[in-house]
């Protein structure tokens, strides 16, 4: 049987129903804030050490401490020799609920490793920053940087980040820079036309 938990509505007293007195009580609250804060502002500008009258963080100048658990932009970890730690196992691509990771696997030049990602691209505009890719990775090759929150750009294309960007945090490398590694296989890079079509 479904249990029903009745939620008792708060009955308003007649005094409250008349509306006016309660409104003025509300006015008292806001007025107190107004005058207290005004006093603090004036005190500060006169050089007194009063409590700050605000909760605002003046963003570009002041920054809010970010939680260590913050999931920011992705990063691909490197081996000591500078090659990506990723073995192109596609676990993250599979785990991703937004299907926004696109990996093209290639045979690794390193004999001890089978595969490596020729192209590794993430569409950050589709990403919901759930961190499942990080959880899924068996190689600890993909992580999410904490402390990084300025994900802003003037074009959509710049949110489509590629392997070099993920490895080195550098600006977008052009396709041709590593096109040679692709051996004629298509990379998943979506151009703006495709993005506009809704992919």
């Amino acid at each position, binding site marked *: 049987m479904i249990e029903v938990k009745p939620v008792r509505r708060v009955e308003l007293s007649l005094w409250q129903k008349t509306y*006016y007195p309660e*409104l003025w009580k*509300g*006015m008292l*609250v*806001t*007025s107190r*804030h*107004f005058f207290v*804060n*005004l006093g603090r*502002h004036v005190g500060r500008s006169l050089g007194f050490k009063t409590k700050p*009258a*605000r*909760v*605002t963080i*003046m963003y570009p100048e002041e920054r809010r401490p970010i939680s260590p658990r913050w999931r920011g932009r992705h990063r691909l970890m490197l081996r000591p020799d500078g090659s990506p730690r990723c073995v192109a196992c596609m676990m993250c691509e599979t785990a991703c609920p937004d299907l926004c990771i696109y990996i093209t696997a290639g045979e690794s030049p390193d004999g001890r490793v089978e595969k490596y990602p020729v192209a590794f691209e993430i569409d950050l505009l589709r990403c919901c920053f759930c961190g499942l890719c990080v959880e899924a990775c068996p190689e600890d090759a993909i992580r999410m940087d904490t402390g990084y929150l300025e994900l802003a750009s003037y074009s959509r294309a710049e949110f489509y980040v590629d392997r070099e960007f993920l490895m080195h945090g550098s600006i977008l490398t052009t396709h041709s820079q590593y096109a040679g590694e692709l051996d004629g296989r298509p990379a998943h890079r979506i151009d703006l036309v495709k993005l506009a079509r809704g992919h």
Partner: protein
Amino acid sequence: MWLDLGLIVGKIAVAFTGIITGAFVLTWAERKQSALISDRIGANRAAILGIKLLGLINSVADAMKMVFKEDFLPPKGLRFLHAMAPVFAMFPVFMTFAVLPFGPPISIGDRIVPLQILQLDIGVLYILAFGSIAVYGVMLAGWASNNKYSLIGGMRATAQMISYELIIGLSLIGPILVYGSLDPGVMATAQNEYLWGWIPKWGIIVQPIAFLLFLPAAMAETKRAPFDLPEGESEIIGFATEYSGMRWGMFFLGEFAEIVVLAAVLATVFLGSYQVPFLFDGGEMAGLAGFHFPWGAYVPLGEWVVVALRVFSFGFKVLVLMWLQMQIRWTFPRFRYDQLMRVSWREMMPIALLNIGVTALIIRLVS
């Protein structure tokens, strides 16, 4: 003749600058006051050469932005009416101020000059009339936009304004009965009388219910929260949807001007206009200008000091009432439309009628 003309122009200039400055300061106060209430800082980014003037530069920046924004007219919109609507919304507000005295009559040479642009026996009717004309601005804006949502928004706003216009009219009848005049100048003078010799006979004291009715009704008339349903963007698109740039700005400058004028009307009718308790000028006290306290104390003041004090007191009252309206706007939640209508027709209207009846009865019994 020339002196008269000069005086009139001078008074108009004073009143006009007063309202415009008030409206301009209000655009700033709206942002800063709401910030203070909610423990924020508010506008503080715009600066000229690093000088921010506590955020006042932001208002200048806002104005510049509005002037340079595209002036949009929807296709098939009615160009003339679309352009006129903001004027209709703003112009009556400025006209209203004409009958309000902003200071006591002063004597220059051998003539008495009232500090009131227009001395009108039917002043209150004049205020109500121009208040009603402001409805046209909203309605025309909705109509000329050639947008059904705007039209509906305009109709809704009109219905609201008319409903509350009614309450304004009814609640002003009480004070009219008490003062026995429709002239704000006479009302102002009458408020320097005292009940039992010591309670100032201000409108708020002799007509408290009328005050409590007039304040919210007039705020509904200015279309500001908690009555800002014309902009109820969560339910319907407002009447000003198809307005941009300075035309939109005029609507809201008009709204701010309305706050100033409303504060002035409230001060005039209910808060003793320019009167300061127990302050009399020479004419009223046989040449003994100054404070005459009911317990017999007398602080002599010069005739001009009295005038200055009174003009200042009017300005101060207007400022306080402007502050109050802002505070109300940032405190109370918005009404729902049916609540709005119910409050007007089923709650405020009977009380207003009752107030008139009781007032009339008391006046009849007392006299």
